[in-house]
């Protein structure tokens, strides 16, 4: 099994006239790496500005409906139905002129708890998909908050010189083998 290694290249996004939208160096580097045979999943980017996948020339990230959001909403709905109807069955509260099971009145707790479940599901989906909180040492360069974009490439160590040259030829300010460090 050939030994794999990772290189990190730091690119400046400041260009003629504008401070943050000069992506030609990093997109050029990625193109050069694709020519060398690196796959999309072998490359990763870290940035302080949310550039879109189209801007970066990367494949669009598709995601079907976030299931955790739907499950959260269903959990909230179930909880609400349980509370509004079951509690009355378990210990009826007789309020003069009111039915035991008022469907119209039940809609309010059903709506609120369904929405709460939806929101919590969305939040947990975000946490889960990103594997947060991440306490393990990570590859990172804080210069992404200084108008830089970091490109990491993972490849067969035999091609280190080619990958390094591809990044440097396309304007990388720095290319180095990163260490995983606590953030």
């Amino acid at each position, binding site marked *: 099994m050939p030994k794999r290694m990772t290189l990190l290249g730091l690119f400046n996004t*400041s260009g003629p006239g*504008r*401070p*943050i939208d000069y992506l030609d160096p990093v997109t050029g580097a990625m193109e050069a790496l694709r020519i060398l045979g690196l796959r999309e999943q072998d490359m*990763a*980017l*870290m*940035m*302080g*500005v*949310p*550039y*879109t*996948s189209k801007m970066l020339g*990367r494949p669009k*990230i598709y*995601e079907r409906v*976030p299931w955790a*959001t739907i499950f959260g909403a269903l959990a909230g709905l179930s909880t609400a139905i349980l*509370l*509004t109807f079951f*509690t*009355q069955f*378990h*210990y009826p*509260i007789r*309020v003069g002129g*009111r039915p035991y099971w*008022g469907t119209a*009145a*039940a809609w*309010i*707790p059903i*709506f*609120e*708890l369904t*929405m*709460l479940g*939806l*929101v*919590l599901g*969305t*939040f947990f*989906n*975000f*946490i889960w*998909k*990103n594997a*947060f*909180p*991440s*306490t393990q040492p*990570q*590859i*990172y360069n804080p210069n*992404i*908050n*200084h*108008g830089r974009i970091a490109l990491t490439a993972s490849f067969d160590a035999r091609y280190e010189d080619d990958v390094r040259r591809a990044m440097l030829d396309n304007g990388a300010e720095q290319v180095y083998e990163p260490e995983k460090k606590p*953030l």
Partner: protein
Amino acid sequence: MLADAQTKFKNLVWPHEDDPKERLLLDPIPQEEMNQIMLKPMLSASPAYWLVVALLAGIVGVCLFGSWAYMIRWGMGVAGIRRPVGWGVFIATFVFWIGISHSGTFVSAILRVFNAEFRRPITRAAELMVTFSLACGGLFPIIHLGRMWVVYFMVPMPNQRQLWPNFQSALVWDLLAITTYLISSTIYVFLPMIPDLAMARDHTTGWRHALYKFTSLGWRGTEYEFHYLHKALNIMAFAIIPIMFSVHTIVSWDFAMTQQVGWHSSIFGPYFVVGAIFSGVSAVITVLLVVRRTMHLEYFLRPEHFDALAKLVLIFSLAWTYFFFNDFFVEWYGGDWAGHKLLNFQMHGGLAPYWYAMLFFNIVVPILTLWNKRVRNSPIALFLITIGINIGMYLERLVIIPGFLQRNRMPFNWGEYTPQWPEVSIAVGTVALFILLYLLASKVIPLIPVWEVLEGQLSHSRRRIGKTVVTSVAELE
């Protein structure tokens, strides 16, 4: 002659109405410079700041918690609530704070859904208002219980006596709605804060670094992280809007579901929602003016933002006027004798000073002033107008809640309400608590979402069309 005319107009460029650099999204500066503008006021505090914090903490300690403790010791009788006025300043202040909480959701979620780009630098400051105003407002149901140690009765959990809350009660709906809104808005303020917390993590040391490292959850700014963040924010923005509408509608149903004269009205739901957004957006302007001045955030918070918010305030003033007139006119035209007694009480009786002051601050002042661009661009004028609006909206709640309770269908049961010092003291204490929480948060939480401003600057550019140069906004997603 034709050649002369052609030469004269050939190079004519239509004069710009404004300098593009006056607009934040057309005035990009290096990212690190933006970070420093944001971080500098966060990481330092003047002696004046600590003096104000100490003063506010003292007011909170004495006025809020001290008065509350006094009331627990001596009973609810020390408050002014008597038959027939069972709900007074406490409930009016509770409704006021819930109304203020609509500010953040409107500015952040609704404007995000409609791609209103001017929202970018102001969303977080507005969203923080939601959390803190809900925290202040949420105290009042507990305060109003008197015996606050039985507050757990409201929580639906199995117990020995097999008692459950009545889910057909408007008060239980209130508990569910406010809890849902508090949790949702806290998540909605936290999610977009993560990249800025990561930026702060990379720029700080010591306890701040540890705090930001914990709260940024290990954010590194990868493509996937931003993708999932955008996805979550889009869902949250759409979800939190109906929650926002439902909260104040349900609060209004605390009154509208009763048979009390003046309360039992089907207009109360939208009337309260519009009033909440009206007072909330006004409060956002007030807070942002202070933040801009004290934290030197003039780069981020520009006249264009206050101009846009002031136009929204004018629109909501007109909307509130419509709903107020609707409520008033139906009662007046309907001819119900008890309703007429109440209207008379408002226009000519004991409520008259508050009623006319409410109309002055909510209708006369905004409509006569905010149409004027010079007023909208004047920080002092905007500050005074928005404070006036919130005074007017507080008076509205006072008029509707304890005011209307003084008159009912049994004249022998009419009463007069006079707030006592514990009520006033606690209400003042919550105002101090809100300001104190905001001041403390301003030193820990980045108030401007720098990454969202950068995203907006990425999408804005200038291009020539014909004889002029126009601003062009690209769709990034």
